[in-house]
């Protein structure tokens, strides 16, 4: 059987130049990632200047559409666009026509009428970015689609690790916590594997998805395993995505006792990361969060320059070949 195409981009005349999106880490090659990290590094230097604004994207429109709450991601995308002199507009699901039952498709068509160059989308469902890509002419940056992907988070994490260790290849990263509900974990597993790092997932059995080893990682339920890692990446328990009575863990108290990251479970020199927001005293001991080895604040700063790099890359003629359509061979 031939390819099944969900997206009908192939039915329209090609945009000159080809429209590119960042929806998943799987859209990127290692060269794409290295180029993006290099661009981010040059933006970091530009931000050290007194005049922090660059004229690069003057006249461009970046629309942020957030169907889920966000502090870090939405603020850094907005600031990233402003630092590059783009016009920005932010729409949140609450207080918009979404409250009145408007579908994602219709909201996207409405926003598309303003001819945005980029739509940054956060949505509770996988596939939402592809749907918006299909009905608008904008380039789409996925700022989180359900439990699927959060590619700019993974890129800023790679940037942070690179800045701290000077390399990514050959490092061992332990990702600890609620893997099942984590788009950050999925993007990071792929991004770290792409750059040659080793990934071990650590968490309670029901929160380690069946079959996830096929993504190129190891799994264990034993928290002692974090001792072997160079980086301990801690995830939040995403209770808002857990159904009542699902019994993923008996209690947060037991979760903390078994899988909470404490100074006692770390060894000197290990770096600690967390995508935020943190639940201090649950998945991360406050002493770990505040220790000098924590890269958590670095991650937030990296978020700005990495998102500047992503916007810049999509709107200039860089070679990131990212397509919205996902051809799939059916059996």
């Amino acid at each position, binding site marked *: 059987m031939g390819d*099944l195409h969900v997206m009908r981009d192939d039915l329209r005349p090609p945009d000159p130049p080809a429209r590119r999106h960042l929806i998943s880490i799987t859209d990127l090659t290692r060269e794409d990632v290295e180029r993006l990290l290099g661009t981010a590094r040059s933006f970091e230097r530009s931000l050290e200047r007194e005049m922090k604004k660059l004229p690069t994207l003057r006249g461009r429109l970046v629309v942020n559409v957030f169907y889920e709450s966000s502090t870090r991601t939405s603020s850094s995308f907005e600031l990233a666009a402003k630092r590059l002199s783009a016009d920005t507009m932010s729409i949140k699901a609450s207080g918009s026509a979404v409250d009145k039952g408007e579908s994602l*498709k219709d909201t996207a068509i409405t926003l598309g009428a303003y001819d945005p160059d980029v739509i940054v989308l956060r949505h509770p469902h996988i596939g939402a970015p592809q749907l918006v890509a299909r009905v608008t002419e904008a380039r789409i940056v996925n700022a989180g689609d359900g439990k699927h992907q959060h590619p700019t988070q993974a890129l800023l994490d790679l940037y942070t690790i690179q800045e701290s260790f000077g390399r990514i290849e050959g490092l061992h990263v332990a990702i600890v916590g609620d893997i099942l509900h984590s788009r950050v974990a999925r993007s990071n597993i792929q991004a770290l594997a792409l750059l040659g790092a080793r990934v071990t997932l650590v968490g309670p059995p029901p929160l380690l998805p069946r*079959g996830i080893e096929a993504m190129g990682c190891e799994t264990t339920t034993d928290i002692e395993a974090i001792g072997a890692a160079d980086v301990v990446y801690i995830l939040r328990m995403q209770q808002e995505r857990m159904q009542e009575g699902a019994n993923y863990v008996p209690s947060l108290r037991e979760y903390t006792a078994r899988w909470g990251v404490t100074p006692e479970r770390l060894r000197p020199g290990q770096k600690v990361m967390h995508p935020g927001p943190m639940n201090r005293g649950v998945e991360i001991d406050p002493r770990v969060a505040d220790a000098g080895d924590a890269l958590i604040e670095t991650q937030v700063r990296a978020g700005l320059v990495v998102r500047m790099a992503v916007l810049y890359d999509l709107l200039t003629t860089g070679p990131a070949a990212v397509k919205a359509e996902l051809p799939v061979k059916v*059996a």
Partner: protein
Amino acid sequence: MPKLFVKDAPKESLVVRGARVVDPVEGIDTQLDVKIDSGTIAELGSSLPANGHRVVDGAGLVLAPAFVDPHVHLRTPGREDEETIASGTQAAAAGGYCAILAMPNTEPVVDSAAVLGALAEQARADAEVSVGFLAAISKGQAGAELTEMGELADEGAVGFTDDGRPVVATALMWRALQYSSITDRPLAVHCEDPTLSRGGHMHEGAVSAELGIGGWPSIAESVMVERDLALAEYEGRPLHLMHLSAHESVDALRRAQAEGISATAEVTPHHLVLTDEAVRSLDPNVKMNPPLGSDHDRQALIEALRVGTISCVATDHAPHARHEKDVPFEAAPFGVTGLETAFSALYTHLVEPGVLELPTLLERMSAGPARAYGLEAPRVAVGAQANLVLLDPGASWRVTEDAFRSRSMNSWLIGETLQGRVCATIAAGRLVHEG
């Protein structure tokens, strides 16, 4: 007796010449002429005279008993925007079907003789091919109180099912098996433990782990299959298992049949052709209940169909309005259409590659489903009502939205080129499709 309802219209008289006639039940697989007088098969032979009948050239074509679909959602009453008896039976005719069985999960639910009687009347006016109606097991399909099965059977209900949802309470399923024995109609079950499938949108496995889509474990089906087979054995009652998808379910069914439990089962074209890998497309038209399984599941289903453990192909034709499917995968409803593509999809993916013999497929699409519900099977025999399908294995065609007779377009095959076409369908003695 279970009743089928169809529009009353003039019957056909014609001669089909030179087709390969295949009727696995009658033991026919040879080139024959078939003469139909006023809707009844009058003569089989070679070089039959036309006697003024219209002559259809069957050279290079296959003539077989028309198909019976044991699992169709006609969405009537309640969602006539998605399908009607007229549009659904036109779609069935185009797919080579002479009879279809409609599910009771409508608005209102088919849980009373009054609702069933109204549907029967409408089918007598509108149905291009014969339609049988299943009635609900529980009132409103709410899973609490049994329907009046005696009266529903008298009105012609072909069987009982709460399809669309499982019978969750074990005690209710037990009572339904006991009480339905007064009717001689089978219970058909949608096997799903909702506490296991909750939050699931696709098969739990490596693909769901990677995509982060809520996993639906195969045991959500198989533990209910095991439960219902145990109840059926205890009561000595027959059971029909709908749209099986998991290899664990197939194993349970095989064991039960070996122990003499009277259980039949059906499988859909999409579970025979696709796996959970297809969900990577995020196309809401590959979202169905039960979800697409692993390749291991798919192979087990194909083998079970081949050897007859599973005796029916069922489309589970489930029309949905376009706007309901034009949303992200997890927000979309379950279900896909299938009446107009079932034969070609299976011919393309199972018969052409040599996985399944054509006569086996034809049997599983016609006599198998008829037998499961105690209906008279369509057959190529003198004196039988003409229920025939004329197939062109050599023709290929492209599936396009605008060609569907169904009111809905939520097919997983749009844009695909398929091998094997339905050229004509004769249902209840009428030529209902010619294409």
